[in-house]
């Protein structure tokens, strides 16, 4: 890494407009393309402070600052367009979380990097609607939270309630949501409203290690820990009435359920296995990167292909996981209200993936090109009439689900044409960390965090209360700032805002 004083570093950064900064070549060595990041004035301060701190003499250890990571990604072979940082960006393993980058599939030197997908492969958000209103749920929210907590296994070391053997898992890895459909855990309409229709066809369970499968089997249908949660939310604000009605959201006060989860230990193991394999491939193919964490392999190499197939299997795992929890949520609600999920109109509004790499066609410099798009902590946001979004959203653009932090609000956005042109159809994914996990553990007290939530009237059930301060709202950026920046920059459009009334968490 180049070490320069902060004032020197700033010369490589240029503010293009109120919401966008450019990272010029030379900020990090060997940059093939420029970098860019989207921030408003408050988020800008966070990013620049992070850079400033890393420039202090003697600052060592921890992750590189987000801007440096964007620039390192820009130095990877085969990258196309720009290396893009979304407003919720924060440092991660290799790639920053909230960094998206596209690689040319037709360039034999292009790479795929597990760090560009993240350890929680196909971590994502699913939103279910109901025909209930706040007044129906408010009086029984404690019972409802308890019922959800009883139905959905949460926390580190939790185990699923859906009986599965090794063969079932193999099938689920290959079929994704089609497995859930076949077995009757999902509705036909769920598949329609899911990114990739809930199944990556390139998945090959044969490329997944035994170890990953052993870790994954008991965890299927569990929420997990960390920032994952299931929330009962009410619609707080509708910005785009027409798009909202297309999603079945008619009025303020309507109750929805948000599920945020991923591929659990399974995805983590797939990523870890791939990183080990790729380190050897890098030596063999003489691939140089600026950061050891940016382990990668050529897309067409055996290692690259193995990873993409295993990653697809992990993505399928995550969809089955979210589908199973949808099933359990529907059961919990049906029992509570003594009716059927059908009568509660508990349809999936949409299901987004925010840690994934996909092959997509984009127009680059006026030409259509086949790209491998890495989205880490970044959500796909395709514009109206894109062929890959469900027919129901052809006129509105793809719904983008942005989960807030515990106790704050969440948003639904829609994709725009401008986002398609500027960010390969990508936008933010959540609030984005402001304090590291260890820092929040040191600075915050879990009792205070829980009391605060209670004070604002949120029912909460946590499996491991002592870890709750890692996820406290104070540890995150303000999701409203993040979403407003995306809206103002035009890369997605605000549609609905929700606030939680009950949370269950790992």
């Amino acid at each position: 890494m180049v070490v320069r004083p902060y004032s020197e570093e700033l010369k490589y950064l240029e503010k293009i407009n109120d919401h966008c900064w450019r990272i010029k070549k030379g900020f990090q060595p060997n940059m093939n393309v420029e970098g860019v990041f989207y921030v408003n004035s408050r988020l800008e301060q966070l990013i620049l402070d992070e850079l400033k701190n890393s420039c202090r003499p003697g600052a060592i250890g921890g992750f590189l600052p987000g801007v440096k990571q964007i620039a390192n990604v820009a130095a990877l072979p085969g990258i196309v367009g720009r290396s893009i940082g979304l407003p919720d960006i924060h440092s991660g393993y290799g790639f920053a979380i909230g960094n998206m980058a596209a690689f040319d599939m037709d360039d034999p030197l292009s790479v795929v990097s597990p760090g560009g997908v993240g350890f929680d492969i196909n971590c994502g958000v699913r939103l279910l609607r109901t025909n209930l209103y706040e007044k129906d749920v408010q009086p029984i929210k404690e019972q409802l939270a308890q019922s959800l907590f009883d139905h959905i296994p949460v926390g580190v070391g939790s185990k699923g309630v859906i009986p599965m053997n090794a063969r079932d898992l193999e099938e689920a890895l290959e079929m994704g949501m089609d497995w859930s459909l076949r077995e009757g855990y999902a509705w036909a309409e769920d598949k329609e409203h899911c990114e990739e229709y809930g199944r990556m066809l390139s998945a090959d369970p044969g490329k997944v290690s035994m170890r990953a499968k052993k870790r994954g089997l008991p965890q299927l249908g569990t929420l997990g820990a960390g920032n994952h949660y299931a929330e009962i939310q009410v619609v707080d604000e509708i910005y785009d009435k027409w798009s909202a009605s297309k999603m079945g959201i008619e009025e303020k006060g309507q109750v929805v359920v948000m599920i945020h989860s991923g591929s659990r230990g399974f995805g983590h193991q797939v990523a870890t296995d791939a990183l080990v394999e790729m380190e050897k491939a890098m030596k063999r193919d003489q691939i140089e990167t600026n950061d050891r964490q940016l382990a990668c392999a050529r897309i067409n190499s055996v290692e690259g292909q193995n990873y993409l197939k295993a990653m697809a299997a992990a993505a399928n795992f995550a969809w089955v996981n979210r589908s199973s929890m949808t099933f359990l949520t529907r059961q919990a609600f049906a029992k509570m209200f003594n009716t059927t999920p059908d009568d509660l109109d508990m349809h999936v509004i949409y299901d987004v993936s925010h840690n994934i790499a996909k092959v997509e066609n984009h127009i680059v410099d006026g030409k259509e090109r086949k790209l491998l798009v890495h989205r880490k902590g970044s959500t796909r946001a395709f514009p109206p009439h894109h062929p890959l979004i469900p027919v129901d959203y052809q006129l509105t653009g793809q719904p983008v689900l942005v989960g807030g932090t515990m106790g704050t609000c969440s948003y639904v956005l829609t994709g725009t044409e401008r986002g398609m042109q500027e960010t390969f159809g990508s936008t933010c994914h959540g609030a984005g960390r402001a304090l590291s996990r260890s820092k929040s553990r040191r600075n915050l007290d879990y009792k205070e965090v829980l009391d605060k939530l209670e004070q604002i009237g949120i029912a909460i059930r946590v499996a491991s209360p002592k870890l709750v301060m890692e996820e406290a709202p104070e540890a995150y950026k303000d999701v409203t700032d993040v979403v407003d920046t995306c809206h103002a920059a035009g890369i997605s459009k605000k549609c609905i805002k929700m606030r939680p009334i009950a949370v269950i968490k790992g």
Partner: protein
Amino acid sequence: MLKLKLEALGHPTPNNIAFSNRKEFASTVLWLEDQTIRLYPIEGRDTMRNLEDMPAWEEGYKQYCTDLSMPPFETQLEQLTWLVGNAMRLEFLDNPSQYESINGVTEGQPKNNGAQSQEKVQTIFDGKINVHDKDFIAGVRTLATKLQVPHHPNHLLQLQAITRIVHERIGPASMNRKAITGTPFPFDKGNDVVAANDPALDYPMRILRLLQIQSLRQLQTHINETIVAVQSLTANPKTDTKLGKVGR
């Protein structure tokens, strides 16, 4: 749109035509016949050329419409649109190779709709009916007039349009269909701007897109119904709470 077409045909003053004026209409028709359609030999156009004697011109025009086998239109704007369209088609057929460069990748391959629909209709009738029989064509044209389907030179395409109308509006299935409820939304107000300053492009594009979405929706509904049918055979969701464990 009409003006654009006239301009493409080389009309000297496409922007200054008052389409409601019968005389200007007459002179435009004459111009089309003179320049591109050329149905009659030059000496046969005398009645149409005599714009001073309008009653005689009307007589000649009536004959001209029959000779061109123009479908019965009500307004003179409709008639003119059809005539211009016909003229453009003739102009194109004179030298199709001249326009070859326009199809291809940039404009999207024009599908051979005629051949496709012919194949489709043939298979429906199992080859028992000659779809190019005069009576058949006449039957399609009459049906089209009754159902107010716009004219198309290829009667088989017109038959397809008729099928759609029967299917959507008149067939027994559509009679029992529940009316669609919900808040209507003006379709020209969406986020998806095609061409903000060119309504001639924007409007038809939106209509085409809606039609496309409608047929996609039908396809998706079929898919969902199929999945549900299969689910009735395969689905057996089970949960076993004994297996479950909430973590620390």
